[in-house]
């Protein structure tokens, strides 16, 4: 059409495609590692409802709005919802998984340092979505 050679565009497209392949491969590898749940992970059932979080530990202890965990252990969250969609989020540990009524979604994490972190809802769930918050308290091992 334009009568000139188009090789600079092909080189450019080649570079872009190579970059995308690299990003895709790295992301695939990272996600594969992240999704591998350790066998000894303790299960915590997380329930989202308008507009608070409840947590149930393996030993039956229940907590509302606060979650106590110990450094060095791995935890698997089983996330459910009692009403509408929510999204369970501990931003500091890149924990994010939707709580969807009728489904059980899982995600895991292993806290590395003692301290407190914010828990929040990241999916719009109505009137008080903005204040559907909680606290993660990471404690030193008890034994």
């Amino acid at each position: 059409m334009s009568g000139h050679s188009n090789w600079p565009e092909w080189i450019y497209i080649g570079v872009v495609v190579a970059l995308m392949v690299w990003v895709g491969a790295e992301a695939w590898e990272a996600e594969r590692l992240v999704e591998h749940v350790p066998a000894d992970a303790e299960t915590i059932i997380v329930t989202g409802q308008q507009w608070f979080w409840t947590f149930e530990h393996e030993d039956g202890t229940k907590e509302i709005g606060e979650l106590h965990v110990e450094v060095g252990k791995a935890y698997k969250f089983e996330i459910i919802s009692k009403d509408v969609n929510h999204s369970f989020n501990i931003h500091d540990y890149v924990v994010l998984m939707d709580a969807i009524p009728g489904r059980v979604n899982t995600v895991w994490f292993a806290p590395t340092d003692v301290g407190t972190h914010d828990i929040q809802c990241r999916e719009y769930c109505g009137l008080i979505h903005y204040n559907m918050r909680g606290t993660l308290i990471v404690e030193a091992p008890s034994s």
Partner: protein
Amino acid sequence: MVLELQKPRPVWQIMFSTHHTDVGLLYLITSLAFLFLGGTLALAIRAELFLPGAQIIGDAMTFNRIFTVHGTTLIFLFIIPFASSVGNYYVPIMVRYKDMAYPKLNAIAFWMIPPAGALIWLGFADFTWYATPPYSIISAPGPAADMWIFGLKILGISSVLGAINFIVTILKCKHPDMSIGQVPLLAWSFLSSSLIILVAIPTFAAALLMLLTDRLGVSGFFNPAMGGDPIAYAHLFWFTFHPEVYVLVIPAIGMMYEIIPRFSRKPIYSYNSGVFAFVLLSIVGFSSWAHHMYATGMSFTEKTVFMVGTLAAVPASAMHVFNFVATMWNGRIKFSTPMMWCVGGIALFFSAGAGGVANAAMPLDFTTHDTYWVVGHFHLFVMGTIAFGSIGMLYYMFPYVTGRMYNETMGKVHFAMSFIGTVLVFFTQHVLGLYGMPRRVFDYPPIPEWIAMNQIATVGAMIIGISMAIFLANIIYSSGKGKLANTEDPFGVGGKYYYPFEAKNPHHD
């Protein structure tokens, strides 16, 4: 040519006209009215978030309604009708036909927009532009929610009618001497985006009906209490609305293809690669919808498939950017207002695309998903790319629509302030997202970084607001009292333009 201000004719004659330049004018005025309405809501949102605690909006429900109507308005009542306006003015002339293929259908498609807009604005729903079930079924207050559903239904039909018209006009009504390979890129953009609409919209149209019957309690498609699944809605919605992103952006890219070669005083670098990228984008646009759903509990395999589909769209977008830069390279560029908007738009398009790659990569998405990062990301597209291209096109069309020139200095000030404002608001929102602030929140805890980022964003929004007031003053004043334009070559860059005034409007003599 539409010179209503110089040769006044009764308003009803324009309103009931089916001529493409008249329908184009109706689309233009309607879309600009909604731009200012929707923009005002954006300023209210930013003012509210300037500090933690309630500022100007008294309660969360009002805030939720405002951001829902803000998004719905600017996507469906500004971007799409504005593109239809440009298509109406230019497509028939570019394919050398007397009008759109179906003039009455064209007018009907336009006249569905005002009632739909009225339903959305009078209802003022609160369930976000995604109408998230089961919230929208069991919790969202009516009749606002139902009015929103009907409004969107009407807009969907309007889009489909418009798309049919553009496709038939371009493919069947183009001049017999003209091959499809000679159709200008702006018209190609309408062909591509119209084809996407025909494939994508029916899915959401079905989902809307299911949502309505779910709300009425006679079905439970998306209601888990009745055995349904909200994830089904997510698939139906995003199957329409990820391709819809390309419906929004492709005409804006087409507008840049019209403007950039003229002001670079060079032919487009590669017409073929522009066409190829449009067609490629229309196809791969359908392979990426579920990247909006990584966090809904999808399997590793599903996520991988949609990540690959999403990354596949990047080279096609990159081809457009290359084409624009290569066209400008060694050109004798004249930076009139329309050109400035386009060049700014390309820069922001590139930034938006780069941010999109981060969202597509699975592990990174869990950091950015549903935070302000995403808000910043898609606003760089809808504001930074689409609105910038559209506003550039508006300045470019202005002398043809009114016969007068806009004020060039005010146009450049409008651009400079909007560009600075857009960077301040939406780049900052990316950072805010990395700090973890969720989107769609009425209030936030007093975390110092969050406050600082929100304040920068609010200042940026106010700068955009002021620039838009300058814009409004400029177009109102100039359309009545501006200098008379040299309609053969209003920008003094030479060459031949497409002249909307060559369209034979039967109402003009």
